[in-house]
Each structure stands twice: as C-alpha cells, then as structure tokens.
C-alpha cells in the first residue's frame, strides 16, 4: 500500500490546482466533464426551458418522427413530446444514480472505516458478510430486493445502492487498515483524541480520495443499472419515468417507430460515457501510480538509430569489441544519454570487469550489446558491437535475437525475479536450448539436467521439476548460469550476478563462474559495483562513471596505481577485515570536496 501514497486532503492550494490542471490536461476527461456539465445543466434547467408538459398525451399526433414541427424529437405512443420527456427523464435518472451512489458510499464507507479501524474479530465478521453479498451475481441480488420491496423507482434505487455497498466497504476498509497504525494516527491517539475524533479527523481525510475514486467509477454503473431495472418495468412506474422506463416502453414500437426507444438509449449512453471518461480522469489524477506513467510498456527491442553507420565488418577484431557505443533513453522527443561513447574489447577466455556505481551506465552498456535495453525505451545512437568482427547492431532483428543466448548469453542480478515464476527450472533451461537448437523436448530436458549438474546442483534430475520459489537464492543463480550455458556461448555477460546473494553464496557463485571460464574458454564480461569481486576474478577492468569509461587496464595495475579519483574511491570502498573505524578515516578525504555527491 505504501506505493499508493495518497495525497492528503490538507494539500496546499497549489496541489489542488495542479490536480485540476492534470485533469484538464487529460483531453478525454475534459470532454467527459464538458459533456456531463452540459447534460446536467439542461436537466437542471428543465423547469424553465420552453418545453411542453412531458405527460400530456395527444393521441392524434402519436409516434411522430423526429424533426416534426413542434416536436423536435417526435412523439411517443401516447403522443407525448419525446424531447421534453427526455430532459425530464434525464433529470430523474441522474438524481436516482447520484442518490444511489451517495447511499452506497455513505453506508459502505462507514462499514469499511469501522471494520478497518477496529480490526480483529469485528472486521472479520463484517468482511465475511460483505464477501457473502459479493458472492451473488450483482444484478440478481438487486432483483431479489426489488421482488421483496415491490417494483418502483425508490425501491430500485435502494436495491442498486445495497448491492454496491460491498465495493465501497471493501475498498475503504483496505485503505483504512493500511493507515490504522501509521505514525500520525498513533500520534493522535497518544495526544488523547477519542476514537471517533481520530476516525473523522485523521483517517477519513486520507481515505477520502479512495471514496471519491470509487464513487466516480461506480456512479455511471449505477445509473446504467437503475435504468436497466426501469427498462424491465421494475423501476420507475407511470406516470414517473426515467430514461430506462422510456426505453422500455418504446420497445413495443421498436419496429414501427424505432426513434422512441433509440433516443433515450443514446441519452443513457452519452450520460454514462461522459461520467466514465471523467471518472477515469479523476482516478488517474488521484492515483499517483497511474499518473507517473509507471505502467509504460517497455519496448521489445532497443531502437537502433545510428546517424553514422559503422563498417559492418572489422578485420582482426577481438572476440567482442565494442566501439564508441552510445545509448540513451527516449522520453518524449528527447533522448537522455546514458552511455556516452564507450569502447572496450574482450578476448577469448578473458574476464573483463565493468565497474561503477548504480546509474553509471554499466548495465545499460551490457544490455545494449544485444539490444535488450527495454525500459524506459532505449535508443542506440552511435557505435558498433563487433562479435568476431561482425557488427551485431547492423544485423536484422531476427539475427540479433538469434545471437541472444546463442553466442552471447546473460546472467542477471536477482535470480528470483529473473526466472519465470510459473515454469519449472528444468523447463526454463530446456527452453533456452530449444530456442537455438532443433531437438525434441525429452532430449532438451535431459540436457537441462546435465547443465544443472555442471553448475553444481545436487539431485538435478529431481530439482529440475522445482519452481524458482522452491529453490534457494544460490541455487536459483546456478539455474541462471545453467541457462546461460545452454548453447555453449562464447561470451557470458554477467550483470551483478552475486549482488542479491549473501556473502558465502557469492563466493561460491564466483568460483563457479571462474571454473566454467577456465574449462570452457569462455569470455566473461562481469558487471559489478564491487572492486572486491573484480580483484578476485577479472583480468582487466574498465571503470565507468556517468556513462563513460574513465579508466581501463589490467586489474592488478589499476588496483596498485589507480589514475582516476573515482577509481580510488571505489577501491577504498572495499572494506578490509579488521580495519574498523580507521576505514572511515581512510575513505573520508576521498569523498570531501568535489564529487562528494557521489
């Protein structure tokens, strides 16, 4: 719930203004608001508009088509003016819809507030009851209530209100529960405020946005449902009529005079649509998660948009050679550079460490190599990635896809989130094999088990049918490595492979990578923020800061005589055993003055 931090009702004036501006910036919501205001205005002005009496019948002029003189929208089966009936009916429908919403919101919120605030047994009982009500198909419960109370507009209103109470109760209870023990509620309690006072002065203001969201998203629905009951003849009874009963009565003349039923239908549709547009807009404004656009879909592939096309081939290149790579994130029309002209090379059997703090661009560099920068949408604007002398980025998409997990494979940071939670690990490894090699499922599965044994998983045969959540962190990372090994790659790119693991497991995973590198002649690109890891296994190291490589060289040279101040800091940050307090004294001067923000 912490993500849905709700704007407090006591937000400064400017905050409210910006909410309004946000709402208006949403074109659809603005259209909805405009349409709804227009409909409301006409409905409210009904008594003073020059309209004929909606209930006066005029048999000789029955079923006149629209645009007849004196009857803009024609007349119904009793010769009553449809325009006038429409406007009066709209007024009734809106009133009923809003009243039903208000009743449902009031009772539902009270239930939700008290259940959430009191908690414990009372909460449990109340929520069980609410669940029970929700176990009914919504409209059928309303029907049962109308059956008991008898047909009628008020009874339909009550029925619709009652069946909507559970939605409010549930939503509001959830939020109340989450803020029941927050600091400001505790503070109010300690200051001696009574429970009721706390509920209404502390809790309610914070729950209000949720109530508003639930109201704005259900009012359209309630108008639709009351209209539905009236359409069935169970709501408004003559002479009262709402849009639903107009539609229901017009149904008898569907074949001879369709406009009698079409006109109120269009009105219901416009009314509900404008409310829904506005409601969605309000929800987006009040729910910051949606406002931030956090749900932007990552792109499937990184866009490759290079102004200068590099040579697609390069003679005498190393196994992997990255030349002047530039990658940025697209936001609107701008591209924010994340990697600025990075070059390095990696030979067969070699291990290169790419080190830097978070945000230095090292992961983006690694993902760029095979166009995997997905979120936010990435653009490679310059440079080349030579694999055995051929530029990967010049190849068509299908070929880049074929390189992934084939000649170059990845091992990612947190193996719990990087493995698919719903497939067994054996299947996931087997899938990596069959993505590149033609073979039947059984063989692939057997190979997967072999790979699991290679990476040191005991009882591999049996563990292969386990799901990621059933394995330990270390085992999961071994699965990740097994998956990377599936097609005997030449290069493994390991992006912080040990960061999410505890120290002893870290050491074992590094040992495993080292061993595989030696046995298989793998080239390893190791991305890390930890010089300790680099010192342990990397032949060479490249230090990245703000999207650029600031220093590159043999690991031992860099460790012995770091040239760049940033490198010195990174090295100093590796804690040594037994140094203790002196460590801080040693590190402090490096961080004072320029660059202290790092």
């Amino acid at each position, binding site marked *: 719930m912490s993500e849905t931090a709700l704007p407090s009702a006591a937000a400064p004036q400017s905050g409210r203004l910006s909410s309004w501006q946000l709402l208006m910036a949403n074109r659809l919501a603005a259209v909805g608001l405009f349409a709804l205001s227009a409909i409301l205005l006409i409905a409210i002005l009904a008594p003073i508009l020059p309209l004929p009496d909606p209930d006066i019948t005029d048999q000789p002029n029955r079923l006149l088509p629209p645009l007849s003189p004196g009857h803009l929208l024609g007349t119904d089966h009793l010769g009553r003016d449809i325009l006038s009936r429409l406007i009066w009916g709209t007024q009734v429908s809106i009133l009923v819809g809003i009243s039903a919403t208000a009743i449902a919101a009031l009772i539902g919120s009270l239930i939700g507030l008290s259940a959430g605030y009191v908690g414990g047994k009372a909460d449990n009982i109340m929520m069980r009851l609410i*669940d*029970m*009500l929700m*176990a*009914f*198909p*919504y*409209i*059928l419960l309303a*029907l*049962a209530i109308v*059956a*008991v109370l008898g047909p009628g507009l008020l009874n339909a209103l009550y029925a619709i209100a009652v069946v909507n109470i559970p939605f409010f109760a549930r939503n509001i209870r959830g939020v109340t529960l989450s803020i029941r023990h927050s600091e400001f509620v505790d503070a109010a309690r300690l200051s001696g405020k009574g429970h009721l006072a706390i509920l209404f002065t502390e809790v309610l203001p914070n729950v209000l946005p949720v109530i508003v969201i639930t109201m704005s998203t259900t009012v359209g629905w309630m108008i*639709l449902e009351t209209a*539905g009951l009236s*359409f*069935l003849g*169970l709501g408004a009874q003559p002479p009262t009529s709402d849009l639903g009963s107009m*539609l229901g009565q017009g*149904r008898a003349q*569907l*074949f001879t005079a*369709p406009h009698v*039923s*079409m006109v109120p*239908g269009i009105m*219901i*549709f416009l009314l*509900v*649509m404008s409310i*829904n547009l506005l409601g969605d807009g309000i929800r987006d404004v009040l729910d910051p998660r949606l406002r931030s656009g956090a*749900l932007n*879909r*990552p792109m*499937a592939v990184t866009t490759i948009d290079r102004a200068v096309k590099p040579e697609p081939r390069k003679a005498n290149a190393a196994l992997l050679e990255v030349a002047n790579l530039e990658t940025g994130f697209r936001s609107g029309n701008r591209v924010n550079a994340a990697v600025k002209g990075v070059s390095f090379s990696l030979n067969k059997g070699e291990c290169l460490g790419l080190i830097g703090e978070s945000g230095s661009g090292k992961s983006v560099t690694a993902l760029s190599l095979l166009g*995997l920068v*997905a*979120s936010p949408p990435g653009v490679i604007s310059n440079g080349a990635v030579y694999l055995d002398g051929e530029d990967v980025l010049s190849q068509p998409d*299908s070929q880049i*896809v074929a390189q*992934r*997990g*084939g000649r170059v494979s*990845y091992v*990612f940071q*947190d193996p719990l*989130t990087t*493995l*698919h*939670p*719903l497939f067994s690990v054996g299947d996931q490894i087997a*899938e*990596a094999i069959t*993505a*590149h090699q033609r073979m039947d499922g059984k063989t692939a599965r057997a190979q997967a088990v072999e790979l699991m044994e290679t990476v040191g998983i005991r009882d591999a045969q049996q563990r292969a049918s386990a*799901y990621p*959540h059933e394995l330990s962190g270390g085992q999961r990372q071994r699965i*990740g490595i097994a998956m990377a090994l*599936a*097609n005997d790659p030449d290069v493994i790119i390991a992006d912080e492979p040990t960061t999410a693991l505890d120290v002893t497991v870290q050491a074992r995973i590094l040992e495993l990578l080292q061993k595989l590198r030696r046995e298989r002649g793998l080239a390893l690109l190791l991305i890390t923020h930890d010089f300790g890891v680099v010192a342990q296994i990397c032949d060479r190291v490249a230090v990245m800061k703000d999207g650029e490589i600031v220093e590159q060289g043999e690991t031992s040279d860099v460790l012995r005589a770091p040239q760049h101040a940033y490198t010195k800091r990174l090295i100093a940050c590796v804690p040594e055993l037994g140094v203790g307090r002196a460590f801080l004294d040693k590190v402090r001067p490096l961080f004072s003055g320029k660059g202290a923000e790092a």
Partner: protein
Amino acid sequence: MASYIIKRLLTAIPVIIGLSIIVFLIMAMIPGDPALALLGSYATPENVARINRDLGLDRSLPEQYFIWVANLVQGDFGRSYILNRPVIDEVLERLSATLILAGVSLVLCSVFGLIAGIVSAVRQFGWTDRIVTFFVLIGISMPAFWLGLIFILVFAVQLRVLPASGMYAVYGGGDLPDLLRHLIMPAVTLAIVATGVIARLTRAAMLEVLRQDFVRTARAKGLNERTVIFKHALRAALVSIIPVIGVQAGFVLGGAVYIETVFQWPGLGAMLVQAVSTRDLLLVQGGVLVAATLYVLVNLAADVAQAMLDPRLKS
C-alpha cells in the same frame, strides 16, 4: 492438486450456506402478509391459514429456515402459485437455456477480451491501442439492453439475416444451426460489457508483466517476440486475469436478465423478471439461489484454474 480442489470445495460450502440464509432472510423480510398478497384482499381466513401452513409461515424463523433447507436438499423448492408447477421444474427447464447463452457469452468475452487486451498492451499508445481503448470505453458505457434493440433493428428488421427473438424457430427449427442463429445476437450483446472489462484488465496485467525481469530473461534467451508475449508474459498475466473472468461470470449471469428479456430467450433471467413483476416469490427465491450457486461454482473453477497456473498458490 486434488487436495487443493477438495479444500477449495469445502470453503465453498459455507458460502453457499450463507447465500441461502441471505436469500431466505430477504424473502422473510417481505412487508405485509404473503398469503394476502397471493390471495388478494378478499381471502377467507381459512385460506390464509392454509397458505400460511403451506408456506410454513406459522413457525419460528430458524425453524422455517431449516425446514426450507431440508426441502431444498430434497429438490423441493416449493411451488410457483402463478405457474402452478414446482419451482424446481421451472428453474431447471430455464437453466439449460441460460447456461447455453451465458456459457457462450463467457467464452466470447474471454477470447475477445484477452485478444484485445494483449494487442492493446503490446502496441501501447499505438493506433490499435487507441482503437481498442475507445471500443472498450463504448462497450462499458453502453446499456446492453439498448444495444440488443439496435442489433434487432439492424440484423433482424433491416438486413433480415438473424431471427429477432426466441431460442428456436417456431416452425421447422430445433436443430443446432437454428439454435446458433438464434444465439448469435443475444450472446454477442451479453458479452460486450464483459469483453470491455476483461480487455481493460488484460491490458493492465500485460503491461505490468512486460516490465518484469523474467520477460527480459526470456528475450535474453533468444526467444522470439511471439513466444515472449504469448508464453511467458501471458502465462504470468493470466494468473491475475482468471479471477476477473470468474467475476465476469456473475455479470454475464446478471446481464442475462436484460438480454433474455430483450431477445425473449427462455432462460432463468427472463423467468426472474416475470417472477418479480408477478411477485412470484418462491420462484424468485429458487431462481436466485440456483444462479448464485452457479456463480459460486464458476468462481471455484476459476480459483482452481488459477492454482493450476500458479504453483505458488497451491501451498
């Protein structure tokens, strides 16, 4: 899996008991004397007493409830005084028609909702996404009963390609093609709203899943985009979509009330509307109880399907 299904079945029992209590209480709260309501105000005291005895209204409320449940278990839902036949006969006869209509609708809305949602998510902010979003908005704002009337006007009156109402043709009907011809319009109309809701949710669920690390892993493995979307992402998204489809079953069952009335489909919904208008309360009671139980069972099936998809839920 079997033990999970049994466990889940057991949790459905209190829910169904709860449903029966609510239905019972709603009916017991009827203002006025049901016997008078049935017989009219000129009823003789003897007849009123007889009806009260027939209905068991001379006993205490809990007693009435247990007698009622005992009868239900034996398949005795009481007698419809208006139709003059056992409620259970009428309900069962109507149930099959509703099952066909609601079942087909549920399949339609699931299939089209999923497709629309996936396409919309994969082409986020593209033209397809905008079109889908627009139609979803129209779908969920549209009064279904009105849409049904429009369909009748267009396809039955103007184009004369589909029958306007009923389940079978009066003359020479009765076979499967005839049923399908009658089924198309009501099933599509009934599915529209639920399609919109499912599409919306699928889009959100897919967008959420596509940001996950394991999708990047799937791409890094060298899987093609189709496998990434339909196998890896969709499988994970389905875990949150399936319960929503279960909830939509309730909206489809409820919406059947309107659609069956509009298309004169001889199902439970149309029966309920008539029963409410004529205040045939035992028929309402029986119909609502059967429909609600059906809904509980559908949700149970949805839960089981969800657990089959997600191994983490079984433990």
